């Protein structure tokens, strides 16, 4: 099958956009389900930020592609195997602990990740990153605060949060892994090196987990594959819900 996502930069933009869109899709389902009204408002803010990042990245990818695709064509008309998000963001919200731990892992990654992208040679990408890194820092402050409170709160909250960590840790590798796409972009001078991201991520996790009295699982297994469109089975349910209306009325304006 002829794929239009052939340049490394376009592919990189799409997968970063996909990370943010799929996470926003998860978060959007949580409004009116949070433990307090203040948290409904907070989760909506985070959702809007990720959605905004996704839309900016899709718009830029679409321009570089030059095929006249819109952000909605990219979000609504690609199939499971064409989405390039990491497996972490598609994991479901089993409970508030899962929501927070998933978010914390994403935030701990996105701060150093977007920080590096601020130095991208592509000015549009650098501009997107400059806004996104501020949002990621804000998100990290919130999610880290919650990880500590849940990890070092009650026995129940500790157990639930540790269970969330034990389950979600295996999907973080997909977010952090660097492959030939990044290698090429760095070698071509499009991006500064991303080698330092994992170190910052690990340090953030270690420091917050220490305060939260949480531990990392000993099982080293990582469920990779998202970057190649090999998602977890969760994803096959998320996508149709998001895409159905757009696909049911081809060509309609909304």
């Amino acid at each position, binding site marked *: 099958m002829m794929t239009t996502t052939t340049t490394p930069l376009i592919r990189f933009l799409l997968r970063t956009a996909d990370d943010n869109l799929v996470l926003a899709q998860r978060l959007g389902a949580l409004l009116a389900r949070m433990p*307090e009204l*203040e948290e409904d*408002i*907070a989760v909506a*803010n985070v959702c809007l930020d990720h959605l905004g990042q996704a839309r900016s990245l899709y718009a830029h990818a679409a321009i570089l592609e030059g095929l006249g695709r819109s952000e909605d064509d990219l979000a609504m008309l690609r199939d499971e195997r064409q989405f390039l998000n990491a497996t972490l963001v598609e994991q479901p919200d089993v409970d508030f602990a899962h929501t927070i731990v998933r978010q914390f892992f994403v935030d701990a990654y996105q701060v150093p990740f977007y920080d590096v992208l601020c130095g991208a040679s592509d000015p549009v990408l650098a501009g997107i990153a400059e806004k996104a890194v501020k949002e990621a820092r*804000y998100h990290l*402050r*919130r999610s880290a*605060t919650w990880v500590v*409170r849940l990890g070092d709160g009650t026995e129940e909250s500790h157990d639930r949060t540790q269970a969330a960590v034990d389950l979600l840790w295996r999907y973080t590798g997909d977010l952090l892994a660097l492959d030939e796409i990044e290698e090429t972009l760095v070698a071509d001078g499009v991006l500064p090196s991303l080698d330092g991201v994992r170190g910052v991520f690990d340090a953030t996790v270690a420091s917050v987990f220490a305060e939260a009295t949480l531990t990392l699982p000993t099982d080293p297994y990582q469920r990779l594959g998202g970057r190649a469109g090999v998602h977890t089975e969760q994803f096959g349910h998320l996508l149709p819900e998001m895409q159905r209306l757009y696909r049911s009325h081809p060509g309609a304006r909304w």
Partner: protein
Amino acid sequence: MSASEQGWPLWEVFVRADRGLNHVHAGSVHAADAETALQAARDVYTRRAEGVSIWVVRSTEIVASDPDRRDDWFGDLKPYRHPTFYEIPDAIGHM
């Protein structure tokens, strides 16, 4: 829901929209501690506008005057402190 469940305490929120202005009371939020109260206040009352200063104070820490004792506190006006007390000749212009 446990009948003995304790709620999150109430915090009053004061926002200074910009340098040069005062902090103004904006409302209240519920939070378990100061850090999360500050985060909630930022989300709710500023929609995260930058450059905004926020104070949160536990509502129980606020000490207020009693409005019904208004005459006792404020009845003893010292009129010479108020600018309209003085007559400025028109020739001086605005002061």
